[in-house]
């Protein structure tokens, strides 16, 4: 009654499971890599913002110091 189609079908399903798992895991790994990259970009953007603010503060301080230097040297 049980021909060769049963083992063949079971084998195909098992192989399909392995392929599906491999594709699923690869997709998950890619997803994780993308998430890590997005977090890195966000961190760099925030860092750049902080650096810009600090640079502006330094420039203002520099102007004040230059004025003091000019006043002192007459």
């Amino acid at each position, binding site marked *: 009654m049980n021909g060769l189609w049963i083992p063949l079908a*079971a084998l195909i399903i098992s192989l399909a499971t392995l392929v599906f798992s491999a594709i699923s*895991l690869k997709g998950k790994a890619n997803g994780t890599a993308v998430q890590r990259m997005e977090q890195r970009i966000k961190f760099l953007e925030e860092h750049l913002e902080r650096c810009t603010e600090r640079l502006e503060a330094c420039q203002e301080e520099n102007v004040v110091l230059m004025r003091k230097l000019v006043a002192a040297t007459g």
Partner: protein
Amino acid sequence: MTRHYIIWYAIVLHFVWGSLLLVHPVGLRTTPVSAMATVSNGSAPGLGLILLGAAGLALTALFYPFPRAWQVTVLCVPQQFLLFLSAGGAVAATWAGMYADGVPRPHLFIFMDQFPTMLAAILHSLAITVGMKSL
């Protein structure tokens, strides 16, 4: 965690079937087991060892802390293969209207009787693919 139960079910099932086949070959003609006999070339002790081996691999997958999810899947695939052999035997018996030992019954009768075998194979596949990350 609930996704483990179907794997435990298959482990216990194959362990019991495997042990009984090592003791006596009478169970070889039951519908879910007869389809599996093709992998052991009709040998009852051979199939018993294969069933115990598959159960052992799945047990290892549950208890050993594998770092990769695919390793768990690979260890559960032999068990899944055997479950689908059983399910195939159940479908064939339903289709033919006859159990593997030759007892004729209405198609629906056999389907209702053998449905748990088919369901187990499907749920097991879902557990080792979709539910794999929780293993």
